[in-house]
């Protein structure tokens, strides 16, 4: 085997990462992750937002040091940003006060080349990426797609061995993203890039299957590798291909089953108070249920199909599905979603009845909502500060998750008439409007 003789371009071994909680205890975000990328490979890291995939990419780039574990770049330990590793950023990260040319030259600053040599190389990178003629433009004059082209040019100008891409297409509209992806793949398959390996972080399943040779599916809380999937299809790949579909479905099924497992596990801890709630508005829930019950789905749909018919990406679709599953209006199984009896009743009811049903489910299946209501009922004056619940949540969740969960429960509780929340004084209360 060749793997014996040539070391992987990058090799992450047993990576663990923990951030400090406000209380001081560590909160794990990455657990025992192994990842190695060989020459000639595009490897995808797929997971929902907040699953720690961007953190992993920054560890591979030497920007963050893991709490424990080892990072080997071409066989040698990585001690910081190294020559030969560059990053394409989700938000482009262009310097607005520099022209396209100067932004690209920035990729060469660390090499300390003579000025005209730097200029020549920048120009050829700009040509390669299809931005010829825009050298003197400032980023603010460019469209999103063109800005990301500058980001690519800056990343490849120094002839990197390893290219790290952090959701490079997710800030672009669908068509622009597709064009840029195709252009990049053309350069890659034609071997016009000096780059030996690529790590792509994404939450777009189709994008991962379209581009990668190997996909690691990250399951969150804390992130670990849930599955590794090889994509043996030749480039250029066709989305309508049956084999393509099969892989997409497989990934959906892994992600769904991971999600239901994690919901189940969380409801066991601390009476379910620490359950993460997705921030999904009640109208999105209602709209989704209505869509799901109408033909052609009739209450049952494969996730991949409903995603396609809504044009929803994973980071949109999964929170909605998660909310429905938690509230037991629908059930997730394998790669599909099915309305429960209550979900069907909800779909057929009028506004008042829906409210009543929602309130009932909220009290029964979301322990946090029931807990808040209980506290308010017990208290004299029927008011409680938000900080109290924040504090309880932070025993189990990191700050961002706690914030998101509280916001979700506020929205749901307001709709259900379970309690009211006043943001000025940051207190929950049972008000006059609330029965």
């Amino acid at each position: 085997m060749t793997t014996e003789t040539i070391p992987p371009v990058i090799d992450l071994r047993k990576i663990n990462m923990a951030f400090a909680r406000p209380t001081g205890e560590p909160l794990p975000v990455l657990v025992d992750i192994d990842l190695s990328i060989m020459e000639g490979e595009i490897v995808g890291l797929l997971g929902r937002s907040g699953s720690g995939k961007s953190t992993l990419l920054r560890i591979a780039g030497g920007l963050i040091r893991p709490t424990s574990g080892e990072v080997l770049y071409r066989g040698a330990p990585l001690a910081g940003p190294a020559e030969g590793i560059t990053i394409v950023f989700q938000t482009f990260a262009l310097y607005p006060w520099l022209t396209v040319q100067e932004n690209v030259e920035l990729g060469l600053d660390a090499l300390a080349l003579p000025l005209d040599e730097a200029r020549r190389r920048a120009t050829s990178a700009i040509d390669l990426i299809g931005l010829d003629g825009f050298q003197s433009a400032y980023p603010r004059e460019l469209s999103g797609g063109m800005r990301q082209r500058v980001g690519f040019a800056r990343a490849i100008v120094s002839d990197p061995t390893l290219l790290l891409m952090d959701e490079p297409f997710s800030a672009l509209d669908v068509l622009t993203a597709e064009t840029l992806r195709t252009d990049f793949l053309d350069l890659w398959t034609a071997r016009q890039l000096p780059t030996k390996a690529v790590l792509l972080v994404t939450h777009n399943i189709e994008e991962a299957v379209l581009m990668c040779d190997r996909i690691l599916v990250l399951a969150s809380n804390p992130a670990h590798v849930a599955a590794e999937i090889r994509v043996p299809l030749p480039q250029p790949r066709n989305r309508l291909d049956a084999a393509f579909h099969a892989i997409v479905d497989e990934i959906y099924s892994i992600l769904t089953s991971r999600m239901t497992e994690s919901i189940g596990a969380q409801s066991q801890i601390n009476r379910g108070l620490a359950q993460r709630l997705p921030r999904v508005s009640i109208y999105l829930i209602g709209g989704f249920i209505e869509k799901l019950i109408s033909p052609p789905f009739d209450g049952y749909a494969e996730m991949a199909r409903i995603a396609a018919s809504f044009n929803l990406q994973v980071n949109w679709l999964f929170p909605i599905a998660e909310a429905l599953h938690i509230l037991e209006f629908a059930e997730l199984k394998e790669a599909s979603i099915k309305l429960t009896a209550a979900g069907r009743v909800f779909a057929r009811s009028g506004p008042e009845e829906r409210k009543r049903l929602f309130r009932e489910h909220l009290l029964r299946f979301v322990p946090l909502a029931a807990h808040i209501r209980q506290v308010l009922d017990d208290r004299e004056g029927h008011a409680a500060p938000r900080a109290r619940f924040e504090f309880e949540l932070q025993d189990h969740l990191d700050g961002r998750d706690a914030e998101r969960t509280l916001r979700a429960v506020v929205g749901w509780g307001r709709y259900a008439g379970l309690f009211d929340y006043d943001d000025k004084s940051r207190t929950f209360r049972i008000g006059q409007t609330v029965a």
Partner: protein
Amino acid sequence: MLVLGLILLIGIGARQMVAPFVSAHQAEISLAPAALPLYTLRTVMRMLAALAASLTFTFTYATLAAKSRRAEMVLIPILDVLQSVPVLGYLSFTVTFFVALFPGNVLGPELAAIFAIFTSQAWNMAFSFYQGLRTVPNELDEASRAFRASAWQRFWRLEVPFAMPGLIWNMMMSMSGGWFFVVASEAISVGDVQIALPGVGSYVARAIQERDLAAVGWAIAAMTIAIICYDQLLFRPMVAWAEKFRFEQTAAQTVPRSWVLDLLRGSNLLRSINQPIGTAARKITRAQLSLPPGIVHRMTVWSPPRRAVDIIWIGLVAAGIAYVVWALAQFAGAALAWDDVAIAVSNGGLTLLRVAILIVIASVIWVPIGVAVGLRPGLTAKVQPIAQFLAAFPANLLFPVVVFLIVRFDLTPRIWLSPLMILGTQWYILFNVIAGASAFPSDFREAAATFRVRRWRWWRQVMLPGIFPYYVTGAITASGGAWNASIVSEVVSWGPTKLNGSGLGAYIAQMTVAGDFPRIALGIAVMSILVITMNRLIWRPLYAFAERRTRLD
């Protein structure tokens, strides 16, 4: 021609600054209008020198504070206190020091004046730069680290450009205040040290002695021209140039323009001069100048900060503070009694009352006017530069006119001297309100019009909340300026006539003339404490409230 002329003028100004200075026979200030251009030039030169000093201070002090957590713990509170000390208070203390530093040379008093101007602008420039450094967007920071920029490259290519628009805006604000102090610091007497540096301020001081109202008029005219030139030749081009550093990625609707900058960019001759400078600047900022790689490209380490070192550091700082307090107590205890403290505090109360009432009156007058102007774009374009000019104009040049009137009509100084405090700084309220009203989203206005919101409700629920953050910014500046101005406005004279309005400003001014250092220090301390308290208890909460109220997400 323009450039050559400027270089020549700077040369002349600088030559005179180092001229020997003999305390006994200082140059007599001439009241002839013909002498004014040269005086104005001297004043402007001081301003430039102070600006250069402030920039140097900003780049070092703020960078240190932003880069080192431990330095930050000490430097930022110090800056906060320094900012609240009245500018002319520094002058009383430092002038003797600077004169002693260069005995017999005019450089000493010159430096003292420059230092006074420096103190009026350095602090908020440093604050703004520090804020800029702290808010460099994460993604740009990561990009610069991922592309392995050295600390030097990073500073010039990322941090300075990012902080630039805020810094230039603050420089402009500081300059507005600076004119006031440059005029106030030229003619001073601390105890038996009498100084009159040639400049517009001394010219006016002399005119007051001689009761020459015409000369005051000439000085006002000269200052007007100087400020307009400064604005057109220096700040307009800088603001227009700094436009490219704005971080927003969308194109702005109205781009600030400057004819001088257009000229600089347009003319072939100037471009050929500029080109080598530009290339050199690029070379310098691209230079690596890196420390050994292990030190520079450190990773972000998520280990908790080392507690032990922190504790030692905090202990050292606390010991330092304790020592300073002890030393001060020794110094003050020998000369001061509790009675003095009571007098200073009661004077402080009087000045506080004045500031509060004046801010209210100025708000009642300028908020409606500002809104009316701000909602009419045509009018805004005309009024805004005038308001900015008025804010920059050193109001102390106008004092003699007011004093003349008070003497003439025999008015009560305690009441009628008060408006002087806010004469120069009320314009901050006006132009901030104008800015707020013109930035008010037009769909909010249209919505209010569609629903035919009633007049009273329109003010209370539409317009006032909309301009509130801007108003608070303006009012903070105005009240800070009023405190500063109290030192020169609560005691004024017209020839032999002295008017005393009493108050903390008057107290400090009198003690300065008497050269009574413990009481100057006491007065300054009381004023600083009052200013800090007011900031903490009123302005900061108001500002936070304004920010929270007007946010949509």
